[in-house]
């Protein structure tokens, strides 16, 4: 649903790194992050936080999550609480948070 620009909430983008022995798929990462958010802050909290894992920014090792600026810390904590991805143990490291995608891409570590 389209909302007037003055009523639109501010967004934050969280850059994360997937620490795992095996390469990870976007669907697994997205599902685990959303389930972790639901487990921590509940269904209503996740809806209010407007959590979305950005497919265009996912590279297999790095990715980004978009969320509301009011729920930034809760979403970061939810990302940190993920312990399993697919069938293997994995963890996430939050690298940066930014208001724009452009600034977030600048924070990506050089390969």
């Amino acid at each position, binding site marked *: 649903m389209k909302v007037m620009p003055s009523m639109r909430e501010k967004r934050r983008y969280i850059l994360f790194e997937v620490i795992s022995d095996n390469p990870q798929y976007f669907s697994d990462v997205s599902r685990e992050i959303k389930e972790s958010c639901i487990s921590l802050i509940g269904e209503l909290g996740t809806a209010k936080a407007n959590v979305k894992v950005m497919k265009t920014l996912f590279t297999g090792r790095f990715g980004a999550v978009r969320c509301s600026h009011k729920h930034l810390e*809760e979403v970061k904590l939810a990302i940190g609480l993920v312990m399993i991805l697919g069938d293997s*143990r994995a*963890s996430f490291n939050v690298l940066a948070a930014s208001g724009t995608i452009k600034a977030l891409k600048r924070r990506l570590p050089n390969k």
Partner: protein
Amino acid sequence: MKRYAFCLSEKMSAENTLKEFAEFSKRLGWDGLVVLGDGSEDFPETAGIDIISGVLLKPSNDSELRKSLSKIRKSAEIVAAMCGFRCLDDRVDIVVPENPTQTDIREMKKKGMLFAADFREVLLSSGLKRVSALKGMSDIAKVCLKEKAAVIPISPAVSLRDMRGPSILSAFACVLGSDKGKVNASFEALDERAAHNRERLSRKFVMKGVRKI
């Protein structure tokens, strides 16, 4: 200001050596590593980060704590205690309290202790256990905020997969009720405490502000 990660030395093995813990801590963004063991080991700087020897005590009463401290304090740089009672011994650096009252926190704060929120307890629990753990920690954090006591988020890692970066632990402390400024202040307080203990354990220390040349 240095920010320290925590790990348990008894869980180090051929699979997860000290060097691996140190390298992983550096990768996550930590400036140092506290190894909680028996406090007697002297660790060299590894992987470019500072390694501190620490002890984690779980005393059942005050006399047991005092007995342990009299032996350990001569060698350990950081002493952490998980106490279910009011711990008023100022030789303890970090306290992980269990069901403290407001008076307990006030008295312990006067002794200069730092209160720790254990992230690993939340990480490994789920459902109602996680709810009760978070509730307990947020109540303690609320009282500490009122008493202006420092709450430091720690996560004593058993394996590399348990370690989390400073950003996530800061978010944990913020969710419990603290704010970023206070979390940074608590990391700074731990750094000062570690530096003071290190200086005190060195042979050149006489008293605060006085050193042998």
